[in-house]
């Protein structure tokens, strides 16, 4: 399915910058990020640990620690997003660690019913019915037995689904999912991804998926933004990204993917380490690790440019023309 790219964006980031104060000065986690999420689409943010993808999601939700410096605009349907008033209603988030994202001393029913009571005033039997409906929606059908269970009595997949049910309490239009399957077994992962995909189709839920797992991204994303050192280096529809990766970093990422059907070691690890958040190289942050780096790469920060003949496919690298993947 192709998302309705012509509809007005649900969420728009304009020049979003997130920086953290460190002893050595302000360390930028996200730099001048422009990004839109359309209604009903699954947009994936991909990158290595520390590249700023989670900081982006937390900045949208206004959940960053108080010392974080955030600038730029976050727009919701064209208006400035009031995250503290809208979160839990218009947009919700599920987290990486379902084991600790649930309060260990409250039962499933109590926790799922909490947003219902706060946002929709549901109590008692109505709340219970709604809790069961949400759990079903999140892929836990006939969950009566689970209502009295505590988080430690649930499996990892069940916990993530409970978290999902809580996030769906007010039928949000956007779900931010921060590595929703990373802490889970491979078999459970597939089930959760199916559920997310189904929610997108059935409820028209847009999903901003944060992941380092290209397998997950390839499965459910409509569009993919590849992030390196706080900047988007390539933004493309899924098919285009996986069949015609253009930025050297994207190519390197895809090249070092383990092949599930072969016993061979993953082909080519990317040489070097991602740069430390406080000491990003000047110019294109990837140039010290880039096989195609030129002198100009350390001088100018490349901007995202649409590819010739593929306006949906934007790449932040001036040295890709004429090169074949």
């Amino acid at each position, binding site marked *: 399915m192709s998302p309705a790219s012509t509809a007005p964006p649900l969420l728009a980031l304009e020049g979003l910058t997130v920086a953290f104060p460190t002893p050595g000065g302000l360390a930028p986690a996200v730099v001048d990020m422009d990004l839109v999420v359309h209604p009903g689409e699954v947009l994936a943010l991909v990158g290595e640990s520390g590249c700023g993808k989670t900081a982006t999601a937390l900045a949208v939700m206004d959940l960053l620690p108080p010392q974080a410096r955030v600038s730029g605009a976050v727009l919701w349907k064209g208006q400035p997003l009031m995250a503290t008033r809208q*979160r839990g209603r218009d947009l919700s988030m599920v987290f990486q660690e379902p084991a600790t994202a649930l309060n260990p001393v409250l039962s499933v029913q109590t926790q799922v019913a909490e947003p219902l009571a706060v946002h929709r005033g549901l109590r008692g039997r109505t709340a219970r019915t709604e809790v069961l409906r949400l759990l079903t929606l999140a892929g836990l059908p006939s969950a009566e037995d689970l209502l009295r269970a505590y988080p430690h009595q649930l499996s990892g997949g069940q916990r993530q689904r409970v978290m999902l049910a809580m996030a769906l309490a007010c039928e949000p239009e956007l779900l931010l999912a921060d590595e929703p399957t990373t802490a889970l077994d491979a078999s459970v992962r597939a089930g959760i991804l199916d559920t997310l995909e189904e929610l997108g189709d059935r409820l028209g839920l847009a999903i901003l998926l944060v992941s380092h797992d290209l397998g997950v991204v390839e499965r459910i994303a409509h569009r993919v933004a590849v992030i390196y050192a706080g900047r988007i280096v390539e933004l493309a529809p899924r098919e285009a990204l996986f069949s015609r990766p253009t930025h050297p970093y994207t190519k390197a990422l895809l090249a070092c993917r383990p092949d599930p059907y072969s016993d061979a070691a993953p082909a080519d690890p990317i040489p070097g380490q991602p740069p430390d958040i406080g000491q990003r190289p000047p110019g294109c942050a990837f140039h010290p690790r880039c096989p195609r780096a030129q002198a100009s790469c350390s001088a100018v920060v490349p901007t995202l440019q649409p590819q010739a003949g593929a306006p949906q496919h934007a790449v932040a690298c001036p040295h890709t023309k004429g090169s074949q993947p």
Partner: protein
Amino acid sequence: MALPPTLHSLRRQPLALLGLGLVLGLGLLAIAAPWLAPHDPLQVQLGPAHSPPGARFLLGTDAVGRDCLSRLLYGGRVSLPLGLLAVAVAAGLGTTLGALAGFFGGWVDKGITWFTDLFLALPRLVLLLAVLAVASQVHHGRFLLVALVLGLTGWMPVARIVRSQVLSVQARPWVLAARGLGLPPSRILLRHVLPWALPPVMVHASLLVGTTILAEAALSFLGLGVPQPTPTWGNMIAEGMRRLDSWWLTVFPGLAITAAVVGFNLLGDGLRDLLAQPRENRP
């Protein structure tokens, strides 16, 4: 939180059990004082003044011929509740201020921390003496006044403990998740943060009861606590100081205070060990 397992593992801590026994024992003696006391604690000239412990007066008599055993039993009815009430005031105030400081941060935190430091910097006994000396005309409700003043000068450590606990619990993922769900701050604080800050408060409170009973004794000793003729362990010692050759006047109330302080301290230590134990699924 899981109380039955807690009580169960308390059984593996003999010292904590001893503490619990002392506290419960003293409490029961105080509650049962009207039935246990052989005489009226306020009745003067029951026998000769300063009779040493013997068959008729098990713990002897004081300067005006009152029965020391009866006064000791009745003294527990003042000293123990006074200590508990003062600690309840201190724990309540400290928890409230510490939770607000840790949860809201910013200038709320700065203000409350400054206020806490201010109170900590004042020598407690001097403060107590000043307040109680000024209020020395107040005779009715002296018990409440002393408890309140002790509580209002003892909340600072509780506030510090709760503040630091709240700061660390606030970083737990479920608190972030609760904020992400748009739950109001009051609800997040009360349901998702504060319950995790309370175990150390319980530990500290039980230790505080001991020191508070001591403080009450010191005040009564100085004549600023609960006045005669109402017996408290503190003012009994104060009376006995005038005649140190009648050793029983000071030794027995002193032992009662010691037992209470040791009891609450052992209980507090035991609770700390219990609550600090790593428990399954407690991140």
